[in-house]
């Protein structure tokens, strides 16, 4: 089997187009408001700095720490602690924990605007 054939270029082009199209989307976020989702539902909206435990089915799954500008999670009850390793995230960033079905993100809106 050949390492490279001419038509392989199309795959590169498609991937590049997808990445470029995604990069041109314009997004705005409220830096002072963090929304916490568990199983797709909003369980908490945070506007003041502090530490906020998050519960699911009556059990604490993680603690969200907000410093006013950035957010992170600590003491997560998941095996790999990937959400903790994501560290501090600012507006535009998200913390996702699949085992805990958790999403932590800054409130904002996404506008699909292509700029030339």
């Amino acid at each position, binding site marked *: *089997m*050949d*390492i*490279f*054939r001419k*038509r*392989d270029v*199309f*795959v*590169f082009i498609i*991937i590049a187009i*997808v*990445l470029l199209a*995604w*990069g041109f989307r314009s997004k705005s976020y409220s830096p002072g408001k963090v929304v916490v*989702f568990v*199983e*797709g*539902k909003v369980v908490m909206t945070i506007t003041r700095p502090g530490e906020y435990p998050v519960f699911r089915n009556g059990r604490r799954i993680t603690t969200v720490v907000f410093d006013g500008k950035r957010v992170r999670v600590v003491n997560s009850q998941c*095996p*790999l602690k*990937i959400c903790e*390793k*994501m*560290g501090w995230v600012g507006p535009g960033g*998200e913390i*996702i*924990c*699949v*085992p805990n*079905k*958790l*999403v932590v*993100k800054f409130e904002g809106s996404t506008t699909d605007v292509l700029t030339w």
Partner: protein
Amino acid sequence: MVALLGIMIAVSSSIYIVESFIPFPLPVGRWGFSNSVVLFFASFDFKGSLIIAAGKSLIGSLFTGRFMTPGFVMGFVGALGAAVVEWVMFRFKFGYFGASIAGSAVNNVLQMLVGAYFIKSGYIFSLLPLFLAVGSISAIGNVYLAKSYERFWREMK
């Protein structure tokens, strides 16, 4: 053929286990070099590629303690989907590069879909561009690994 498949599953599983000890630049994700064996097999044996994809995911996850975790399910579905797409790409006369990049992209998309099902949210797709970019780099590495297996396979047979 069964014995040879078993050997290739062992090779792929070993790569899966060893690469889990190599630090990955992102907090989430894996190198994915174990998919190189799947890529190689997809170039000539569809069933074999599926068996290897399933086998290395199962065995690798058992040894790394990830069996039946959401991450295992995501990886399992992604590996099988990648095997299917790579085989289709080879049937349409693409080379290792095209098949590997496409397989990596489909692998990541499927993992995001499964992840979105688990967390019941589409926000996980915000990570897709990053994974597509990093996955493409691993896919290029898999191309050269898959090519190197050809001589090994000829000697084994």
